[in-house]
């Protein structure tokens, strides 16, 4: 008799079909077309496009500002998550809800209001202008906007981990005489570290590609505050699809590498926690 392998949970065919279709239509096909469009350029042309001085400068602007903004977010996100989880104070729920505003707000709206705030005439910009720091139309401004965009990623990945953290770990360390600082550094931080990395990676990925909120505050000076997505936009407006997709491909490769690295960290952690020998 022929053995028929039956699965315990039915519906694999259907659900896997839906999954693959969704992934293909929404993610894989558009990304593949990026490679196809880039393929219209010869290899020499490709190298020319991506090593163009103005393009290289934009990579630098985008990566450096995104990296710094994500670092700030990693620290501030942990602090925010800590406050929201560990303390109870009036208005906690409101603050908790406000964390998601950067997700909900149209990025252009955020960009315009941040620009208004941080220009020399704005409420925040005026204060900094007095000590000679300009925010709007500089890289500081870009970083500022990216911090705004990226903060929910870190808070929302760290928060649930902190909430679930078993209080007896801290008690155990406390009974053995550890100070609060040691407890945070040696007990709590290792627990939230994977979440911080994930949040950092997600925020970085998002910040590198951010367009709407940055484009107003950046000022878009070539070689100085011109971000990569803006260059792509400009190439598209010139109907130079080949160059646009070549630059986009570089960003794609970077994002992919980033997500891969984040996942490697997760794999290592789950190995420690689940006891792979």
């Amino acid at each position, binding site marked *: 008799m022929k053995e028929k392998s039956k699965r315990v949970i039915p519906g694999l065919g259907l659900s896997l079909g839906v999954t693959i279709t969704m992934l293909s239509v929404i993610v894989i096909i558009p990304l593949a077309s990026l490679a196809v469009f880039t393929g219209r350029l010869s290899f020499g042309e490709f190298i020319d496009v991506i090593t163009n001085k103005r393009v290289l400068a934009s990579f630098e602007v985008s990566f450096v500002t995104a990296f710094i903004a994500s670092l700030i977010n990693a620290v501030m996100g942990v602090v925010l998550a800590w406050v929201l989880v560990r303390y109870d104070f009036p208005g906690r729920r409101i603050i908790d809800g406000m964390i998601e505003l950067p997700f909900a707000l149209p990025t252009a709206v955020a960009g315009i209001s941040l620009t208004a705030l941080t220009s020399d005439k704005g409420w925040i910009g005026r204060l900094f202008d007095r000590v000679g720091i300009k925010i709007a139309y500089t890289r500081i401004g870009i970083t500022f906007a990216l911090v705004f965009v990226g903060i929910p990623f870190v808070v929302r990945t760290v928060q649930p981990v902190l909430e679930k953290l078993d209080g007896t770990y801290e008690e155990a360390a406390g009974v053995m*005489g550890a100070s609060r600082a040691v407890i945070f550094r040696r007990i709590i931080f290792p627990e939230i570290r994977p979440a911080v990395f994930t949040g950092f990676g997600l925020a970085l990925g998002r910040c590198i590609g951010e367009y709407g909120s940055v484009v107003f505050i950046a000022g878009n000076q070539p070689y100085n505050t011109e971000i990569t997505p803006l260059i792509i936009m400009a190439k598209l407006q010139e109907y130079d699809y080949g160059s646009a997709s070549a630059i986009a491909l570089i960003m794609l490769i970077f994002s992919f590498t980033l997500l891969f690295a984040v996942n490697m960290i997760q794999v290592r952690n789950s190995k420690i926690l689940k006891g792979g020998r």
Partner: protein
Amino acid sequence: MAYVELKNINKSYGDFKASDDVSFGIERGKLIGLLGPSGSGKTTILRMIAGLESPDSGEIIIDGKVVNDIPASKRGIGFVFQNYALFRYMTVFDNVAFGLKYGPYAQKDKKYIETRVNELLDLVGLSGLGKRYPSQLSGGQRQRVAFARALAPNPYLLLLDEPFAAIDAKVRQELRSWLKQIIEKLGITSIFVTHDQDEAIEVADEIIITNNGRVEQQGTPIEIYRDPQTAFTAAFFGQTGYLEDYRKFKSFEPIGEIDKAIVRPEFVKLTKKNEFQKFKTSAVEATVERVSFRGNYIEVGVESNGSHFVARRELEQELVSVGEKVDVFIYRIFVTKGDKAYLLQNSSLREESVVI
């Protein structure tokens, strides 16, 4: 003089009174079992001694010093948590070394830390597993690591919260006697919390029974078993059955109004009609309701004069069957009146001693 002493400790969580005027003293070097049903406040007592909770009123005295205001981190107490609370991201070695690296007993000397940790891993029988992570250990091994970690800084008092609760039955048996041996060897004053009376009897030198936030009784296991002072202890300790009206059972002198009459299986002598019953005249007839095999004895549930209780028979004795009429003789009962418990001997036992 008592080494650890609690004086009139009160502690409430909202409306719930977790400790109600708790007072007791513990001698140095003793292994104490805090025994009580869940919610009786035994863990709260343990956590207050450790400094993880502070009492609303009353004094906690360790080695002659009031420690109420000393934080947990400076009391020098070892604590084994119910879920062990092993640090998941540290190896077994680092877990055990934690108390040696930080805190009031921190050691600068790396060589010393290494020697001490390896010494403890040897002691708990886990040498060679120092590089593993807690997730790579079995439940029993984790318990041993938690124990070694608590002992590493040489605490003068060891507290264990339900140390065997999370371990399966077979390993639990082994760990119990192992733990008792090691604590005796080290001579460290220890208090452990349990809801399991067998565990308390087997492991503890002395038992403190808690109920509803109060201490019911303190004494050696045998004292508490033989001579329960309170109604709660009489009913909680041992396997209890109740007599509806003890006066219907022969030869108990009536002592006026009582609440309950408690009978334990070992107080009952159950004989078949054809067997010799020494106190035949004082025995009453009972009907067998239930016979269960319990591994090394047979438990027999009987009904007599409207009361249901349990007796035991040896495996070597002839089997009784459900519905069979048998004779039961009750040596003694505990009667309770209000909070108090009294022992009532069968008077035919006394008559016999007079004759002799």
